[in-house]
């Protein structure tokens, strides 16, 4: 009997390890967004070229709203190619990517768009109201909206191919609104 009891010693480490592993599921940096599941706040901005950009005009499509800035290095620099690549891949399938540039200089924003060859609509949130409406804490933050215009996923930090495709595919698979 005594021989077997000793093997409990290594097992003593398991609860502690399990607790620490649990920590991965809950990130303390996640600022909870009560907006998930709610209708996305509407906005109307002007793109860098001067064309109007309104959220409502894209109702019925899966919308990816990406908040970024040219001074947000390196994360925004990492996700820019990802967003462009996936925008080109998904635009025919009823998906639109909208970029909202916050607290940035116009020239810096234009240079960023030019350097990365971004072709999706990009606007500047000059008054800052859109970022407040969306509860944006920092950049980058990306919101995935479903076809009914509800916020379904809020992603904090650089978006990866994997995150984009998994989320968008899931939202595309849902039934379109009447």
């Amino acid at each position, binding site marked *: 009997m005594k021989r077997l009891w000793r093997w409990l010693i290594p097992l003593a480490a398991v609860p502690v390890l399990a607790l620490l592993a649990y920590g991965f599921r809950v990130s303390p940096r996640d*600022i909870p967004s*009560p907006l998930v599941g709610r209708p996305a706040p509407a906005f109307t901005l002007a793109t860098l070229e001067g064309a109007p950009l309104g959220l409502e005009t894209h109702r019925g499509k899966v919308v990816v709203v990406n908040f970024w800035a040219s001074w947000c290095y390196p994360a925004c620099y990492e996700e820019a190619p990802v967003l462009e690549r996936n925008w080109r891949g998904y635009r025919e399938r009823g998906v639109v990517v909208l970029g909202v540039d916050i607290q940035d200089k116009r020239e810096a924003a234009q240079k960023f768009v030019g350097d990365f060859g971004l072709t999706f609509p990009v606007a500047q949130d000059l008054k800052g109201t859109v970022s407040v409406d969306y509860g944006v804490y*920092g*950049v980058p933050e990306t919101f995935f909206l479903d076809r009914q215009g509800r916020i379904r996923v809020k992603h*904090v*930090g650089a978006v990866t191919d994997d995150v984009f495709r998994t989320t968008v595919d899931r939202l595309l698979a849902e039934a379109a609104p009447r």
Partner: protein
Amino acid sequence: MTRRRKLVIGGLVIAGALAYMIYAGVTQSAVYFVTPSELRGAAVPGKAYRLGGMVVPGSLKWEPRSLDLSFTLSDGTATVPVRHKGTPPDLFGEGRGAVLEGNWTADGYFKASLIMAKHSEEYKAPHDTNQAGYRELFKTLRGEGR
């Protein structure tokens, strides 16, 4: 009583005392994490909270002479009025995230005893890029200096 047993009892006494001290310490200094929505839902006056949210632009009022700081904290859905005595930390500002420690008062506002601002490498809070404010400050002060 054998020496063995005395040791074991001694050990248990110490363990028990430690457990009690830890329990007392935890119950006295536990701080609950909440968002403005959660706080609005069920705020208990006097309970220690840690409130996280964003400072609503235009809500910040700072009175240097009396050291009164007041602002509104939001999480996109609900807002909480906050008051604090003393200069806020450097990373604190409108349109930025903040984490506060304090308690909810019966008068309907959150009294913050501590304002914390976090700073990470990848994830940046919005800031004033054009630095115009700083440049202007620099010019004015330069004119004062020797």
